[in-house]
């Protein structure tokens, strides 16, 4: 019974990942992350992605604040934030977020405010989509782990 459940969940994960790859949400770099995950760091992907979300949320919040300042938008700072976002997104293989960030960045380089606002919206949309997908993925993953690995399960439920 248990084994069957795990198989089904694993299939779900694969299906989800495949669809994410097909949509271009993720790219090979994500596989690199998965490769890096081994017995010594069994939650590597989960941890990295979580940090990514934390960091990105901060960056996005800052970006929104910077852009909301109607009189003066510090495009240089926006560019720096976006560099960060581009870097980390490409590191985890979040291709679509990365691509829209690059577009956003080129708008900021041109001091194109409407372009930036549009860019931010698209980035946020892509980011949230990614986050939802990842959340879903991790939910399934946690289920898988809960079947197999008790201590890990506990860690994932409550990382503190």
């Amino acid at each position, binding site marked *: 019974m248990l084994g069957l459940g795990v198989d089904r969940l694993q299939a779900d994960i694969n299906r989800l990942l495949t669809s994410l790859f097909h949509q271009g949400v993720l790219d090979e770099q994500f596989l690199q992350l998965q490769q890096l995950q081994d017995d010594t760091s069994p939650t590597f992907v989960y941890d990295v992605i979580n*940090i990514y979300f934390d960091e990105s949320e901060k960056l996005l919040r800052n970006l929104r604040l910077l852009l909301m300042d109607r009189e003066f938008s510090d495009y240089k700072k926006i560019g720096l934030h976006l560099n960060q976002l581009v*870097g980390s997104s490409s590191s985890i293989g979040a291709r679509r977020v990365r691509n829209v960030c690059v577009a956003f960045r080129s708008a900021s380089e041109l001091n194109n405010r409407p372009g930036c606002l549009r860019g931010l919206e698209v980035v946020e949309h892509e980011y949230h989509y990614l986050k939802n997908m990842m959340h879903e993925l991790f939910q399934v993953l946690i289920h898988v782990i809960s079947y197999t690995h008790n201590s890990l399960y506990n860690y994932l439920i409550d990382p503190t």
Partner: protein
Amino acid sequence: MVCEMETDDHQNEEMDVEVLSSMWPEDVGTEADNNQFNVGDSDTLKEVDIAEKRTMADLKRLPELMNTTDQGSSQLTNLVKQWEYMQDHAVRLLREELKILTRQREEAEAKELKIIEEHNFETEEPENVPVLDETSDLFRRFKEKKRDKLVGRKRIEIDEEFDTVAYWKQKALSLEKMLEASTERERRLIEKLNESLKTMESHSAPVEELTQNLKRAEGFLHFILQNAPIVMGHQDKDLRYLFIYNKFPTLREHDILGKTDVEIFHGGGVKESEDFKREVLEKGKASKREITFETDLFGSKTFLIYVEPVYNKAGEKIGINYMGMEVTDQVIKREKMAKLREDNAVRKAMESELNKTIHITEETMRAKQMLATMSHEIRSPLSGVVGMAEILSTTKLDKEQRQLLNVMISSGDLVLQLINDILDLSKVESGVMKLEATKFRPREVVKHVLQTAAASLKKDLTLEGNIADEVPILVVGDVLRIRQILTNLISNAIKFTHQGKVGIKLKVIPEPAFASDNALKADAEEQNGLDETSVWICCDVYDTGIGIPENALPCLFKKYMQASADHARKYGGTGLGLAICKQLVELMGGQLTVTSQVNVGSTFTFILPYKVATSNDHSDDQEEFSDMVDHQPEPDDSTEGYFQFKPLLGSIYSNGGPIIGNNFLPHKVMLTSPVKLINGQSETVQVENGGYMDETRHETRSGHCPESAQQYENGNDRYPSKESESCSSSQASSEMESELTVSSPREEAKNETEVKETSKQPKILLVEDNKINIMVAKSMMKQLGYTFDIANNGVEAITAINGSSYDLVLMDVCMPVLDGLKATRLIRSYEESGTWDAAVEAGVDIKTLEDKQTCVRSTNRLPIIAMTANTLSESSEECYANGMDSFISKPVTLQKLKECLKQYLH
């Protein structure tokens, strides 16, 4: 009865008068008609002649002409008609007047009738009263009759009536008065009538009026034609001028009249106009034509000529009317316009053609870009596949598996090579590729190219290099590209040569003809190059191979083309190599040509301009010469002009003995180099000299790195060649074993993985500001078995480097506070100067650490690998320009990291 008769009479009279009045204008008209011809016309023409001295006319003939032709008579008819209309108008006015008078008369009559009626009523006269007549005579008669009657009646009345005589007398008197008044009125009317008749008579002289009309018409014509560039004329059946009007006559009247065109003047167009006139005359149809005259009389002028035939009243042709207007300017303008329009059309066509070309070019560019992008996209996963296969090949495999794997690796390598070629090509084509100017020794480059070629040689071929004495020792050029070209040509030559030799010949030539076209470019170079002089070096790469048939030569340098499909099958290859070589050579301002003879051999020749570098300025070129300084005087091979490499087959020559004897390298040098050769791989024992260590490591990389060009500068010629020899021997043995192609770098990579395992744990510094990236990199490093320190920006990196010594720095380019490029520059400047002055200047706070720095380390070159977010060559160029050694494009993958570490650590 009488009265009635009289009335009739009167009516008749009245009618007569009316007829008369309506008749006379017609009379006058006919009179005028006659006058018009004889008086009016001749008059007008005379005036024309007198007033206009410039006009010529045959006055004698014209009236006659006017009389005999339809045109003439029609004009006169017109005039007559006009006159008639006027007269008609006058008649109408008179008639109206007459009508008024008649009415007045009728009124008077009515009054008289009334009076009579009154009388009649009283005297019972019959109602039928005769109408009063205007003539006094009639009136008198009437009166008499009346009186008679009245008398008669009176008598009767007196007899019958009882009225008094006084009454009747009074009545008669009053009647008399009325009659008198009526008579008076009648008289006045007659007077008026007479008067108007007189005025009419005065008007009746039409001649003056017509004259005036004609004068007006003449004046009008004169006014209109005064300045018009018009010639008018009439010519008879024989085309002799009878009349001519010309505003600017150059000939006198008697010169023209009675003569034909041909008789008057000569030149172009005269005959044509004559023919045209004759044609019109024959056809009887008016027409227009433009004729350009080219005569002595008035030069070159274009006339628009209108010719119409003239008929007499009987309908016979008697000549032509001719009218010409000078339109020279208009014709010129029109021609100009036509030309402009034509030009315009041509330009438009060209424009559209150009647009098409641009469109095609854009499409091509896009396609190329697409190809480049695709190739790039393919390269990353493919390198993963090949890399994995390599790793797999290090594991325990049986023979069959190894064979399969080797096939897999070599195929993968081939595809990778193809993709690299495509990327190279697209870089050159899109102009992204930039050339670097570095100092290098052409002799060494040639030697190393040959060495590397010899290293992987599997045929019985002699490789030789021959460099003319006048070739400078040190020149400036893009050594990387030149090596690429040489390597490409040499490997090509080797590929198609089965026996004999393959060689490189270098000589200085005078500036070729095609270079003078690029004079501007050269000038610009001259300016940049300060006082350096330019030299043209011709490089022949010759072989004794299968040769190239003449018909295949033109497409030899085309992309993806090989001499023939057969060759492609037999020898493989992408067909891109020569295309790349050609493009590179052209990019550097040179020319690549080929001569060949089937079954004898081919010679590829490329001519390139170089700047001559003076060899005494190497103090600023540490990288190249740092290790020359601290070596004892050694034989200098920098002037050596001839090398020869014999094939190294099997392990027969692995000890190098025969080769040395065979003029392999003419210098006998002690083997005091800190390098041991073990099994075809080099291991550096001495680590203090980092730069040196780098170079030895590069040797077997078959020219992939620019540094390798300078690797043998210390004059230790034997050990590297020996190494390559041993390397290739090991390769050869492995080849024999597998019978499958494995390229030498691959072999070497295998060796290096082994090396890595034996070497000590290196110190690595990761300079990166992105948490995620750090995390990922850390995990990767862990998997590769390394640990590293982390610096979050350039300043931290400098502090860290200052604090402890590292073997490798992985540097993010884009960072806050101090970016990777600047940090690298500062580190390099520290390495050169031994102080952090530049860094301090740039605002980096490191004074507390300054005393720690050691002079020893300043001679080492710390390998710095850039991590860039975009892989465009521009940014990689920037990395190199700022002193970085290599770069990894982001996102960093395990494979890339591994390759990089493999290259720089062991």
